[in-house]
């Protein structure tokens, strides 16, 4: 159980670190300071919210008879607010475009490498092979 606890603690700390940065940024933008305790409270709340999110996401994906949570599940999570929902939808589309670009890039590199390999194979004919 100790291992689980320290794992949880490390993750808590990681969340705290990022939340701290976000809080500082938000406070600075409004010309104010924010205390460490306040940041800790926001961090803890965010961490706990992850639990709620995770359980919901898991329920959504199970309902769809999947074992992997997908962007569709996240979109469901964001359904309550129009603006949030639109935002997540937009991010999702950006991700899709980005993935498509990566895919095409890899394809291009793969065909380039293939023709290169073929040339090298012909040259290395008869030499030492692994």
């Amino acid at each position, binding site marked *: 159980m100790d291992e689980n606890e320290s794992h949880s603690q490390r993750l808590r700390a990681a969340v705290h670190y990022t939340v701290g940065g976000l809080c500082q940024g938000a406070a600075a933008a409004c010309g104010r300071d924010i205390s460490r305790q306040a940041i800790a409270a926001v961090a803890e709340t965010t961490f706990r919210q*992850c639990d709620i999110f995770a359980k919901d996401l*898991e329920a959504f994906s199970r309902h769809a008879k999947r074992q992997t949570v997908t962007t569709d599940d996240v979109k469901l999570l964001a359904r309550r607010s129009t603006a949030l929902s639109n935002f997540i939808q937009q991010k999702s589309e950006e991700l899709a475009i980005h993935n498509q670009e990566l895919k095409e890039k890899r394809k291009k590199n793969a065909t380039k490498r293939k023709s290169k390999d073929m040339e090298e194979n012909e040259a290395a004919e008869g030499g030492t092979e692994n």
Partner: protein
Amino acid sequence: MASAEPEVVFKKETVSKVLTMFFKDEKTKVSSDAVSLMAEMLKIFAVEAARRAIKQAENEDCDVVDLEHVEKILPELRFSGGRVISLPGTALTPHIWWMQWNRSSSHDCTGVNWEVQECGDVW
């Protein structure tokens, strides 16, 4: 309006591990894209909480946003359907106020006049 500082984001690895830790079934996984989206969601959540606490501190004429301000806004930090409330004048980052500020709540001792509008534009 654009900030020159590096953007603070949740690391994908952190988000993935946190979510997985909270799943009931250990076989449940999260896709990479879903992790990216959740990182955004969490960022919005945290910034939302911070903004409300800051507003609370402002209303109490406090220079420092302290624990008590966070505690006061926490009860309202809940999912709530439909309406989105935006803070007039602030437009630094997309503030998607998904949580409805309950003006009739007994917790609301700030006398804040929230401007209620649909937040159509995002970035």
